[in-house]
């Protein structure tokens, strides 16, 4: 598992297609120049969507967690654990990249 740094900035990879379909965020990786709906497709639930949408390549992960804590009125620890958990998975699948 990649190591997640709260001071890092993360953003969606250029090699994915992200779309909102039937209320779900659907992410289809581009593999060998093919958007393959028969390959691995990732879907995000409401929590995942909220986190993913904030990974805009501009703010640090700590700022994302703080914003989630405020917006959804959850504890910092819960927001951090959910965010770090999702970022780990998305990084491993190369759906997001570390920008700095």
């Amino acid at each position, binding site marked *: 598992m990649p190591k997640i740094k709260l001071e890092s900035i993360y953003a969606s990879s250029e090699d994915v297609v992200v779309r909102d379909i039937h209320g779900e965020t*659907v992410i289809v990786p581009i593999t060998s120049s*093919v958007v393959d709906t028969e390959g691995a497709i990732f879907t995000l639930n409401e929590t995942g969507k909220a986190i993913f949408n904030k990974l805009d390549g501009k703010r640090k992960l700590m700022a994302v967690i703080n914003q989630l804590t405020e917006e959804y009125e959850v504890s910092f620890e819960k927001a951090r654990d959910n965010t770090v958990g999702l970022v780990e998975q998305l990084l491993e699948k190369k759906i997001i990249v570390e920008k700095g």
Partner: protein
Amino acid sequence: MTQDGNELLLSSEACVDLMKTAFEKHAFFRMRVKGFSMWPFIKNRDIVTICAPAHINIYTGMVAAFSHPKTKKLIIHRVIGRNSLHFYIKGDNVTGPDGVIPMQDIIGIITGVERHGKKCLCGLGIERHVIALLSRINLFPSLLRLRKLPMFLKRRFI
């Protein structure tokens, strides 16, 4: 297939949207098709690979993905004729044509067909010109009816 192992059912609109986004990123699009309108060359649950139409000239015999002007449904059928502005498109196994489809409604061109994990080589090569011609005379729906004849006879007389 999603990360949970579930099959994601995509509507026509979703497929069209994903397809157009793929083409914007200069990628091909691969999807599973439903239906029997292109039997025997594309069968139900075959996987097709689609490229952007701008990359190639579209000729009679090619199989095109388009959004039907009236129903807005994503359809994958064969070009059986064309003029400078429109295409005449028809499913190989359908008796009536889809009508006159404007060039701008063509979303993609099928470049490959896979069935049971293997590439299908029939229907997209040089033979496509002959197939387009035979499609115009509704050969394939007739063949499908003939194919069912032994079963019909068996039920009727045995």
